[in-house]
């Protein structure tokens, strides 16, 4: 079976600074993979590189077997959720969720219908026309999830989306998000520093050890000497 997402000998970093090198892994369709590791190990940089927010220094990113390393962000079919919901403040809940669908050329009515279905599924029925600054932290993160799932991305990248929430809410959302991903059949990579959270949500956990005191992160094999 072709993996939904694959990293092939990927080198990540900023500019000329290598954070991790030799990263290779696969995420199968409908699979949820958790990447657990300490701060500074390059987890967020890895997600940003997979999504195309920052360029890979070398190596390849493949979606359904196709090399998307040079493909612009908006054509990769990779969704992303950040630590903060980052809802567009000038749009209400429905328009936030429908945003990606409208970019795909879907009519407003169809997009709103899909948004309503997702919102209902995530327990947000009745909030369709609510201003996003009136939502609680948990509600806002659910809307962000609905917005990311709406365009049916090939893979969803979750960059510590629960870390700003309190423990109770975090436990509940881990279950809800996990169910939502499985309901939609979306493959996902969930980055977290909480091993219990990773285990509760993922089919497979990749643990990134502490980075050595000097040199690149241990996310991949050490970078070759320059």
């Amino acid at each position, binding site marked *: 079976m072709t993996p939904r997402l694959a990293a092939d000998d990927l080198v990540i970093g900023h*500019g000329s600074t290598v954070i991790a090198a030799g990263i290779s892994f696969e995420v199968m369709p409908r699979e949820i993979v958790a990447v657990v590791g300490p701060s500074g190990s390059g987890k967020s940089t890895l997600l*940003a590189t997979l*999504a*195309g*927010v920052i360029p890979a220094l070398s190596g390849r990113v493949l979606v359904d077997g196709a090399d998307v390393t040079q493909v*612009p*962000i*908006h054509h*990769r079919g*990779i*969704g*992303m959720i*950040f630590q*903060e919901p*980052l809802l*567009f*403040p*000038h749009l209400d809940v429905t328009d936030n969720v429908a*945003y*990606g669908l409208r*970019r*795909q050329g879907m009519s407003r009515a169809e997009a709103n219908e899909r948004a309503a279905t997702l919102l209902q599924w995530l327990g947000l029925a009745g909030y369709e026309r609510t201003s996003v*600054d009136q939502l609680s932290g948990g509600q806002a993160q659910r809307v962000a999830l609905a*917005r*990311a799932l709406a*365009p049916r*991305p090939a893979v969803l990248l979750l960059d510590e989306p629960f870390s700003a929430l309190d423990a109770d809410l975090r436990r509940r959302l881990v279950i809800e998000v996990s169910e939502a991903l499985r309901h939609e059949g979306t493959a996902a990579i969930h980055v977290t520093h909480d091993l219990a959270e990773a285990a509760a949500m993922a089919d497979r956990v990749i643990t990134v050890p502490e980075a050595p005191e000097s040199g690149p992160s241990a996310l991949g094999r050490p970078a070759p000497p320059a």
Partner: protein
Amino acid sequence: MGGGDGPLNAPRWLGWAWAIPAAFLAAFLVYPVIVLGARVGLGDGWSGLTAASTWQVAGLAAVQALASTILALVVGIPMANVVSRYRYRGRALAQAMVTVPFVLPTVVVALAFRSLLGSGVPQGFALVVVAHAYVNLAVVARIVGAQWAQHDDRYENVARTLGATRWQAFVTVTLPGLRGAIASSAAVVFVFSFTSLGIVLLLGDSTTRTLESQILRQTSVLLDFPGAAATAVIQLVLVTGVLLAGAMAGRRSPRRTMRPVALRPVPAGLSGIVVRVAVATTVIIVIAPVAALLLDSLRAGGAWSTAWWSAMGSVDAGTTRIGSPLGALGMSLGYALVTAVIASIVGGLAAVAVLSRGRARVVALLAIAPLGVSAATLGLGTLLAFGRGPIDLRGTGLLVPIAHALVAVPLVVAVVAPALRATDSRRLAVAASLGARPTRAFVTAYGSVLRVVMLASAALAGAVSLGEFGAASFLARAGNPTVPVQIVRLLSRPGEESYGVAAALAVVLVALTLALVLLVDRFGMSALQRSARTA
């Protein structure tokens, strides 16, 4: 602090500090506006309010101001992007350069555009719009840039992962986030262009009149003071309406996650080239008119020459026979000095009132009111109120500096108030707990900041006075013109000499203004930073 409801340990006299700016503003802002209104009510000014010619001019000015605003936004928004978001060598210089057009006297800008474009470009709508956009680039770049610098790029990243192209992300996510800043800057640019005088007089034609130029014409050509008062009242109402609309649009702007965002490195590839080209274009746009002006001051009869500079001391220069350009420079410097003293005292005390509550706060608000009153309206009001009995101040030489001080006071408040706010008021309690009497404690707490920031604000007021044309055109006595008035008079006469001497005089004005603004930047900013560090 004021009215006894400020910080504890404040000296008692400070509770009454608001009285001085209150008295000054009541006498020289409120009273003249009342006199203007009374002129409309008592004379045949009511007919002026409904005069078709006045509303026709208002319509022309509105179209011109709208076009100027759109051009300033189209050029200023990309400038805001490159000067406030990216890290590159010379960024601070580029940011300072963008401010230059705004601090240049408007008559200098008008002359500089004449120098740059030569006689090949006819005077009129297009030239006026371009010059207004040039002057106001700093307004857009600074206001929008400040907002953009704090903008979280992750919003665009989210939009891109949802399928938006770079342009779609900009239009659907970035622009709505800047809406408030764009609306605020647009309102300010519109008002400045709508109430423009110097540029309209020097670069305009019959289709580019403003209510400001109409007021000048009604008073100096038609001698129709009630009509001018009516025009001033119409302008005051329209300007207030636009500023309120801009403020409301700014307030309606949605809140979004703001975080301290570090300057971004210039991106690689095509985007990086675009940023570098935009920076270079910004610098060229700013420098070109001023450089053309300097060249014109050094060219006579098609050859390099210092003839116009040598003629600066001559009464015959440009054959105005109303005093030498150097005489006008002396007059302007004198006015600037008096303006600096008045504005820094009035504005400084009003800024102290900003920190307090109650009635003193009203004074602080009143102190920024002159921003909404055009310079010609101030000049006309001052002339009507104090240019004849029972209170005739014409012989004192104070009318020009008083009007200039009114223009400068809001800027002084804008410089002094943030520095005072950034100073930790607990210093007052510390000094008092160590045995200092209230006045001594106040000096210990705020003295060092006030000394520096007052110097900066005095320099700013001086710069404003040097370049101000609207009020001076009403109030400067015929034999003692200020430099901007002298420049306009020289340009109204034919001949290369008039033009060359005006260019030389304008270059001197540019140098003086920039020196004062650099002083403000250096001292004002360092005072703010020092206060913030020790707070």
